[in-house]
C-alpha cells in the first residue's frame, strides 16, 4: 500500500508513534472515501436518469417539438437552437480569445497593465453566469436595441461569457511552445508575426482547440444567462436566421421541470437530460482526443 511505502517506520519514543499506524490507516480511508463520494453520488444519479430515460429517449423525442402531452413532447427545436448558438459563437470567441492570448503571451511586456489585464481575466472567469445575462440584457437589448431572446443576442452574450476561459486555455497552450522554436524562427530572419502565425500558433493549436471545445460545453450547459436575455421556453420552429427567437436544451429542461406530471419528471425530463449530457460528453471526448493527438505528436 501507498502508506507503508511512503512512511518511514516511526521511531520509538515519539509520542505520536504508539497509535500512529491506526491513525494513518484511518486518514487514508477518510481521504479515499471523500475523494470517491461525490463521484459515486453523481454516477448513482446518472444511473437513475438512464433507467428513467429508457423508453422515452427515442427518434420521436429527438424529432418533435415540446408538447403538453408527455408522449408527444420532444427536444428538436431546442437541440437545433443549442447547436446553432454554439456554431455562431465559435468564430468570434476563437478570434478574440486567440488574439488576446497572443497579445498577452507574445507581445505584452511584464508591466502593470499586463498584470492588470491578467487579473481582470481571472476575475471575469469567476463572475456568476446570471450576471453575464444582465450584461447581455443591458448591453445588447437595452443599449443596442436588439430583440429579446434571439439567436444573435444569445450567442453574443455566450461569447463574452466563455471568452475568459478560452483566453486562459490559449495562453497556457501558447506558453507551452518551447522558446527554442521562436528563437530559431527569429534567427532565420522571421518577423514576430511570421513567427507567431507559422511557428507558435500551429504548435499551440491543439491545446487551444481543446480549451475551446471545453468552453463550448460550458456554454451549452448554461441556462441563467439565457433567461436574463429573454430566451423563450416554448419554441415550435427552428430559427431561420440570427434575428429569430430560439430556445436551448437547458431552457427546455428548465421549463419541463415545472411540469408536475410524473411522466414529465421521470420520463421526458430524463430523456432531455440524457440528450444534453450525451452532447456534452461528445464534446469532452473530442477534447480528450485533441489533447491525446497533441501529446502523441510532440511527446
Amino acid at each position, binding site marked *: 500500500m*501507498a*502508506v507503508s511505502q*511512503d*512512511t518511514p517506520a*516511526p521511531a*520509538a519514543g*515519539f509520542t*505520536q508513534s504508539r497509535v*500512529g499506524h491506526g491513525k*494513518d490507516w484511518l*486518514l487514508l480511508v477518510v*481521504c479515499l472515501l*471523500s*475523494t470517491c463520494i*461525490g*463521484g459515486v453520488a*453523481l454516477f448513482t*444519479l446518472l444511473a437513475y436518469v438512464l433507467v428513467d430515460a429508457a423508453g422515452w429517449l427515442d427518434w420521436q423525442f429527438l424529432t418533435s417539438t415540446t408538447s403538453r402531452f408527455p408522449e408527444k413532447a420532444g427536444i428538436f427545436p431546442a437541440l437545433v437552437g443549442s447547436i446553432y448558438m454554439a456554431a455562431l459563437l465559435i468564430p468570434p470567441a476563437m*478570434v478574440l480569445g486567440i488574439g*488576446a492570448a*497572443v*497579445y498577452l503571451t507574445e507581445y*505584452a511586456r*511584464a508591466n502593470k497593465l499586463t498584470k492588470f489585464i491578467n*487579473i481582470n481575466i481571472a*476575475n*471575469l472567469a*469567476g*463572475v*456568476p*453566469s*446570471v*450576471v453575464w*445575462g*444582465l*450584461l447581455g*440584457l*443591458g448591453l445588447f*437589448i437595452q443599449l443596442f436595441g436588439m430583440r429579446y431572446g434571439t439567436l444573435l443576442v444569445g450567442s453574443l452574450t455566450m461569447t*463574452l461569457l466563455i*471568452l*475568459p476561459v478560452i*483566453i486562459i486555455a490559449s495562453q497556457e497552450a501558447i506558453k507551452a511552445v518551447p*522558446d527554442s522554436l*521562436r*528563437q530559431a524562427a*527569429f534567427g532565420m530572419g*522571421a*518577423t*514576430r*508575426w511570421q513567427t507567431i502565425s507559422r511557428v507558435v500558433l500551429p504548435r499551440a493549436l491543439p491545446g487551444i482547440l481543446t480549451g475551446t471545445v471545453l468552453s463550448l*460545453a460550458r456554454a451549452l*450547459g448554461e441556462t*441563467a444567462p439565457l*433567461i*436574463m436575455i429573454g430566451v423563450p421556453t416554448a419554441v415550435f420552429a427552428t430559427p431561420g436566421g440570427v434575428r429569430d427567437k430560439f430556445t436551448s436544451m*437547458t431552457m427546455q429542461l*428548465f421549463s419541463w*421541470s415545472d411540469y408536475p406530471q410524473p411522466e414529465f419528471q421521470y420520463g421526458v425530463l430524463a430523456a432531455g437530460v440524457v440528450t444534453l*449530457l450525451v452532447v456534452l460528453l461528445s464534446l469532452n471526448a473530442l477534447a480528450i482526443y485533441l489533447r491525446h493527438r497533441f501529446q502523441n505528436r510532440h511527446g
Partner: protein
Amino acid sequence: MESIETAEASLDLTQGVHPWRERLVRSAAFLCAAITVLTTGGIIAVLLVNAAEFFAEWSVWDFLTGTKWSPAIQPVEYGVLPLVWGTMVITLGSALIALPLGVAAAVYLSEYARPKVRAVVKPYLEILAGVPTVVYGYFALVYVTPALKTVFPTISTFNTLSASIVVGIMIIPFVASISEDAIRAVPKSLRMAGYGLGASKFSVVIRVVIPAAFSGIIASFILALSRAIGETMAVTIAAGQTPRLASIFNLEETFLRPAETMTAAMVNIGMSDVTGDSLAYRSLFAIGLVLFFMTFAMNILGSWVTSRFREKYE
C-alpha cells in the same frame, strides 16, 4: 522574460520587412485583450446605471434592510434580506459538504495517490463541476428530495437541504483542486523533517502539511463559496422561489423548507413578463449589483491569497 528580450533584439534586424503589418497585428491583438477590460467595465456600468434608476425610486436603506421581497404582487416590497438569507443558508449547507470532502480529496491526491491514479482521479473530479447546473437542479428535485423524504418525512417538495447537497457536490472540485495546489506547494523538506523526528504520516499531514498549506486551503474555500453564492439553476429548481426568513438555529425551518436565493429571485423576475420599464425589472440589476460585488470581493481575496502561497514556496 529574457527570451522575449532576445527575440526583440533579433526582430530589429528584420524591422524593415513589414513594419506596418507587424504594428497592425500587434494593435489588433491588443484590442482583443482590451475587450476583456471593456467587458468588466460594461458589467459594472450596466449594473450601476440600472441599479441607480432602481434606487432613485426605492431607497437603498429599505432595499438593504427590508425583510419582505415581493416584486410583482401589490403592495410591492423590495427587501433583499430574505434573498440574502436564502443564499447564505444554501452556501453554508454546501460548505459543510464540500469543504471537508474537498480538503480530504486534496490530501489523498497529493499525499497518497500515485501519479497514475492521480492522472485518472483528477479529471474524474472535474466532471462534478462540468455537469450543467440545470441538471443538478433536476437531480435534487426528482431524486434527492424523495430520497431525503424517507429520512425526514416532513420535508417540503422544494427545500434548501437538497439544494445544499447538489451545490456541495458541484463545488468539491474547486476546493480539491486549489487545496491540492497549495498542499503540493509545501516543500518536501518539511515533510522529511517531520518523518525525521519520527512522526507518523497522520501527524505529518495534520500537523505539518495542512498548517503549512493553510492559506491556500482558505483561498480554495473562498473561491468555492463564491461559486456557491453565484449558483443559479440548481438552487432555483431545488429550493423553490419562496422568499423567507427564519432563525438559522431552527434547523427544520431552515433546511427542510423552501427559500429563495438572490439568483433565484433574478430568474423569477426574468421568467415573468415584467417589461423593461418597471421597478421589478430594475430590481434585477440591484440584486445583480449586490451579487457581483459579493463574488468579486471573494474572488479578488481568494486569488490574492493564492498568489501569496505561490510566492511563499516557489
